[in-house]
């Protein structure tokens, strides 16, 4: 076994989530903990990270795998620095998400689900992110970008490091 990935700082962050729930229901913090783990690992989860979260929350490992594979915000393969989650669900589709996807793929030279060779961008197709009023939309990091047009997309990407 290599040394624990959960440093005291990471544990302290997870503890904040644990504190939000009844004392005997530590496992309620699993989603928060996985997000912290994923951020600490550069945007994706490994089995070791999931196992350590399981041990820390005293839950069966398989139960953590279930959560981590159910929700689409958890990644199980390396991703680029900026993960662009493009909504292609019904409202966005009706408002032209296809054009956005096409534009992104062309500009970045990769297909949905792929990462640019310089590891800067990953494209990901996602379901409704509950921002239908601003369709079409995508999410980068923690930010939502709505009412997208190809020009607006270029503008957003140009401003990213």
């Amino acid at each position, binding site marked *: 076994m290599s040394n624990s990935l959960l440093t005291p700082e990471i544990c302290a962050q997870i503890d904040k989530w644990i504190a939000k729930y009844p004392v005997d229901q530590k496992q309620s913090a699993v989603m928060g903990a996985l997000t912290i783990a994923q951020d600490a690992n550069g945007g994706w989860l490994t*089995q070791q990270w999931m196992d350590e979260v399981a041990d820390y929350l005293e839950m*069966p490992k*398989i139960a953590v*795998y279930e959560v981590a*594979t*159910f929700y689409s915000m958890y990644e199980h393969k390396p991703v680029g620095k900026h993960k662009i989650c493009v909504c292609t669900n019904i409202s966005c589709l009706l408002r032209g998400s296809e054009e956005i996807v096409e534009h992104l793929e062309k500009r970045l030279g990769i297909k949905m689900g792929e990462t640019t060779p310089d590891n800067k961008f990953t494209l990901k197709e996602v379901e409704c992110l509950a921002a239908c009023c601003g369709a079409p939309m995508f999410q980068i990091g923690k930010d939502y970008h709505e009412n997208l047009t190809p020009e607006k997309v270029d503008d957003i990407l140009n401003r990213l490091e």
Partner: protein
Amino acid sequence: MITIEIDGKSCQAESGQMLIDVADAAGIDIPRFCYHKKLSVAASCRMCLVDVEKAPKPLPACATPVMNGMVVRTRSDKARAAQKAVMEFLLINHPLDCPICDQGGECELQDIAVGYGSDVARFQELKRIVPDKNLGSLISTEMTRCIHCTRCVRFSAEIAGVREMGATGRGENMRIGTYIENTIDSELSGNMVDVCPVGALTSKPFRFTARAWELQQRDSVSPHDAVGANLHFHVRRNQVMRAVPKENEAVNEVWLADRDRYSYLALQADDRLTAPMIKKDGVWQTVEWETALKFAVKSLHDVSCQHTSAQLGALASSTSTLEELYLLQKLMRGMNCQNIDHRVRQADFSDQDVAPLFPYLGQSLSDLEQLDTALIIGSNLRKEQPLINQRLRKATLADRGLISEHVKANMMAINPADYDFNYPLKAKITDPSLIKALASVAKALGADIQAESCENGQLIAETLKNGQNKTLLIGQFVQNHQQASVLKSLISTIGKLSGSKIGYLAESGNAAGAHLMGVLPHRGVSGKAIENKGLNAQQMLTEGLKGYLLLGLEPELDSRFGATALETLKKAQCVVSLTAFKTPAMLEYATVLLPIALFPETSGTYINGEGRWQAFNGAVSPAGEARPAWKVLRVLANLLQVDGFEYASTDDIRSEIGSFHLETPIADNSQCNPLPNTFEIPTSNELQRITEMPIYAVDAMIRRAGALQKTTDAQKSTGIVLNAQQFAHLQGHDKIDVSQNGQTFELTFRLEETVPQNCALMFGGQMLGNWDGFLTVGES
């Protein structure tokens, strides 16, 4: 009680009961996949949709509590349409190739599809494919067939108590499995094959060897632990193809331990003895029964003539049937010999005259579920008695496996190593001698003894005192301990002072029978005291006799004396072994090998730990020339001119045994030697050896069940286990030298926190020195 109407039939029900249970009780069939009466309700498959009056839409019968006056139709157009639609969706991704599926012919999906499905598929698109997993040596997978009922997931969380299976991914990408490559290591894992309604999880040893409709079902009883699980053997052309549970709520409910399920594999073991053999002038030869029997009789006769019959001894396996054990002791006693025993793992016999009549569980198996407090003493219970442990788990946890799971009973353990339990323990003491721990509990309860008190001892005493329905369970480490009598006195005292029942965990499915039949040197049938006591197993196996009669036993592996037993037997003038197998060791020490039937091949009776008599018939005929041991013993007795052996069947023997009126035997488990005031605990600066008889080595059949031997549990029961901190410096070595009493073995080792400092855990069922004592280890 309320009344509801299902399909025009009026049914009585408890309010709040699920509709499907009420329908089942009334014999009304509602199709289902995810529902299982022993598991929590998932209500995920929707196959059980029925039409309930006043409900706008069909309701799932497995998750609909009944209400007074409810009117239910399971076959109305509305119900039918719903069922048909669900069926169609379930079959979208399921392969329609039943002829090449192992489950074909006994598949719930196939049956229900015939009853409720449509005759043509409308689905034109591609079906999904799911890669198979390697779950170990017992379960095969074909995950493309999985219908996501989650029965196996719920089984592993709720019953097996180790959450090994799960549902990862979602929607079309949802998959049932372990996610990472992982074997299923539960001792109850085979039950997943039973709960899986389709051919996704099947039995690896059985897979593709027979079709359900070719099999005949024969009932039997498993002898490998105190439960005596009821099972069905499935037989084709006189061969046992598999074993499945036979439902008996009072005994095994609907489950089997893997040990019960896969022991049949030993029937076909490579070293099966299929013809009698004798050793003449040092050379083994296969002979006719008549020759072998005469040879055996002559050699036994020679011993008693040249010496006395006190130079003979009989040792039996306690997995033998009641009838066999009865005849064995009757034969020996007919020859005026009292050297009879089956307690080959016991070390301390000093309380045998006062010991309880038989190793009685002290309560019924189902009573265990009602306990609110239990102290497990000297047992790796999960592995020693898998289904008893399952009952205790039920007693301990409400809503098992669910988020609302909570503890409702106080379980505690005193063990030589820190064994894993699949339910929370309120308190535990890990102490290799066990004496100190028990003494501290007894002292805390007010016993007048000299003992150190300890915090956990206090807590255990307190908890026992406060419990209502409570028991102390005595496992193999106590029963086989060098100071077992002292331990039992302490336990009896604790029982008395705390008002707890005492229960023995019998080492096998007929240990009770062996006691009651008087396969003991000091007691006859029904426990009648014998005046001229014979030698016990330890004396017979270490001091040496001229002649031995062995019944289903491999003393070198079954007993605690291993190599010593082997040496002792080798020196004997004659060893007549009634055995189903032939081993190199046996060929060294035996003079006659008489092939006998294994339990699936013979009729007989077993008495389980709760004193329950369970009779069974043979499922197949014995291998080759083998004969049921009772017949062999009968002929031996006839030839030895011992009277009273005119039995035509096991029924005849049973009715003779019946005259002793032991059908509901009572044992007083508090009986023991007087409690000493001070305790001697052997100490040494060497490592104290702790020996566990591991789950897959307990008897000759289990040791030969190939699939069980490949499990993680079996692989882990080899070599030596040492304390991780104390022996950290050994890390990196493959093997170490272990010395005990001047003998040295080279062994593989593992380092674990569970073994206390200054101790070494080793495993029985091998020829590696005697079971206890002290040893040293060094780099090899």
